[in-house]
């Protein structure tokens, strides 16, 4: 018993010392209340040098945390107990956050650099007049294919994937909206369709694709396509860009039937302790030169018109990643379909996954 008490006391003392040291270290580096900015972002989605530059210019210390899905991010912010000053969710998650009253409106007078954003990407259905959010990056969903592996065939449409010659060649992302959207688009329906008949039709069409599907995977899809585990993948444009940097045989195409156009926007959660700094950060990231540097690092498409002037002509004239208005007008943004419809999408997707090969 005596030994136990002694051990317990030792543990308590050590913990206490550690807490004090951590606090001391934090305040020595300037991480004290009122002078920090906590950013909640996707993994590897910002040039870290820019954070250092922001710290230097403003004297604000940045704490950087990451998430790997909109759902995980939503759950964390909904539960409270966090104090994120900036988060970067996708459009349907923003719609949800606005409805659940989780965001602070953005004071446009504090973000003068907003003028550099392409009007095409402002005032969209999920956030009218950009009251709560500011565009960060955007992109599409499409097909990445390896020309060396599948022969010199040009894939241009979703329907091409159903070709029997691609047996066991296709990897798709494990996302109900993306996969059901692909099938709906290939049938000529909207990827926000809520007509049950159309959805069942789309699911049955997906069943026919099973012989061609090698696997349904998560983030590994990037590595698997890079290492030529399969020749074709259903991916987001940014993932495709990263694969193309590693493997020159890979091509990316946005299918002609239409596809998804997505946005990741910067928002200020209600739990923010330092909205002033959050506005400063948003304005900083919208500066054309900084946005250009960030885009070159991340590889997704920037909505910042001013930034394009600082970027490589070759990059911004690449129709695959900077499609013109004619193509983007054919693309659709995911709408928040509500919990019940989303569950129905997922049920159908689950049934499709269970369809025997």
């Amino acid at each position, binding site marked *: 018993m005596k030994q136990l008490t002694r051990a317990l006391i030792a543990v308590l003392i050590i913990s206490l010392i550690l807490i004090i040291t951590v606090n001391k270290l934090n305040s020595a580096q300037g991480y004290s209340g009122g002078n920090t900015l906590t950013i909640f972002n996707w993994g590897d989605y910002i040039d870290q040098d820019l954070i250092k530059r922001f710290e230097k210019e403003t004297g604000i210390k940045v704490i950087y945390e990451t998430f790997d*899905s909109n*759902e*995980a991010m939503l759950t964390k912010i909904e539960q409270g107990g966090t104090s994120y000053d900036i988060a970067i969710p996708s459009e349907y998650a923003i719609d949800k956050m606005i409805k659940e009253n989780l965001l602070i409106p953005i004071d446009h007078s504090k973000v003068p650099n907003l003028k550099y954003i392409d009007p095409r990407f402002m005032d969209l259905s999920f956030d009218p007049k950009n009251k709560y959010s500011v565009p960060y990056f955007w992109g599409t969903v499409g097909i990445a294919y390896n020309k060396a592996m599948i022969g010199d065939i040009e894939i241009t449409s979703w329907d091409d994937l159903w070709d029997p010659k691609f047996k*066991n060649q296709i*990897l798709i992302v*494990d996302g*109900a909206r993306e996969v059901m959207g692909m099938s709906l688009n290939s049938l000529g329906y909207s990827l926000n369709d809520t007509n049950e008949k159309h959805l069942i039709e789309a699911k049955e069409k997906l069943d026919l694709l099973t012989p061609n599907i*090698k*696997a*349904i*995977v*998560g983030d*590994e899809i990037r*590595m*698997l396509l890079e*290492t*030529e*585990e399969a020749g074709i993948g259903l991916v987001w444009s940014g993932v495709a860009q990263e694969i193309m940097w590693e493997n020159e045989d890979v091509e990316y195409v946005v299918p002609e039937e239409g596809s998804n156009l997505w946005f990741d926007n910067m928002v200020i959660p209600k739990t923010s302790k330092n909205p002033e700094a959050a506005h400063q950060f948003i304005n900083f990231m919208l500066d054309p030169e900084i946005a250009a540097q960030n885009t070159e690092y991340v590889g997704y498409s920037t909505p910042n018109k001013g930034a394009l002037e600082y970027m490589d002509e070759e990059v911004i004239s690449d129709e695959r990643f900077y499609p013109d208005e004619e193509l983007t007008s054919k693309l659709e943004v995911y709408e928040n379909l509500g*919990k*019940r419809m*989303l*569950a129905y999408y*997922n*049920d159908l997707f*689950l*049934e499709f*996954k*269970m369809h025997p*090969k």
Partner: protein
Amino acid sequence: MKSNSRNLYLIPYIIWIGLFVVTPILLVLYYSFFDIEGHFTIDNYKKFFTPVYLKMIFNSFWYAFLITLFSLIIAYPTAYLLTKTKHKQLWLLLIILPSWINLLLKAYAFIGIFGTYGAANSFLEVMGIGSKQLLFTDFSFIFVSVYIFLPFMILPIFNALDELNPSLIDASNDLGASPWTTFRRVIFPLTLDGVKSGCQVVFIPALSLFMLTRLIAGNRVITLGTAIEQHFLVTQDWGMGSTIAVFLIIAMVLIMVLTGKRKRGIL
């Protein structure tokens, strides 16, 4: 006085069990009666008995059964040989060592090994068999699962074999039993307890495997664990996820009861 202070020591344990075992189970049960919009309903249970989920139950049990079977087939002889070696504890340590490594890390390693250009396929090439698709097949799923669960099967069997009194085997031999009869009538019945607890420790987690189904089987194998993960993280249909969890809890209790029963006979 003495029993009083003993009861006092029980308090932290009771609090622990109450907070982290009983409450969560009750919460799971509670949530299983609510639909996605938070209305009280028993639809989740009705939905559970539709063909989609029945097929999923069947799949889960079938794969868990195969994983347990193959683990047992490999583990028993291994454990038996282990008891015959000189440095038992060292060998045992070497077998347990891989279970200290993070599961995700091992899964990623297997993606590399089983990939089209991975080590396994280069070996098949050299052997003249030619490369085959290994990754994203039932074979690779069961292989990796067995690899991961093997230490948990070996340990209890090894302990049972180690405790076996060697004079019983000598007696059996002296009385003219063939080695096979000795194994069948003496060794195996006496180590049955170890086999049972090994099977429990493997079968129950195998029933709700989820990460491997995506990483190694490429979502070509859908188990109840996958469905729970999806309901909680993606659709946020906590009710349906809880319903599946309730079913899994019931199944596990049943397995425990069934495999634990005959213990009395041996004791």
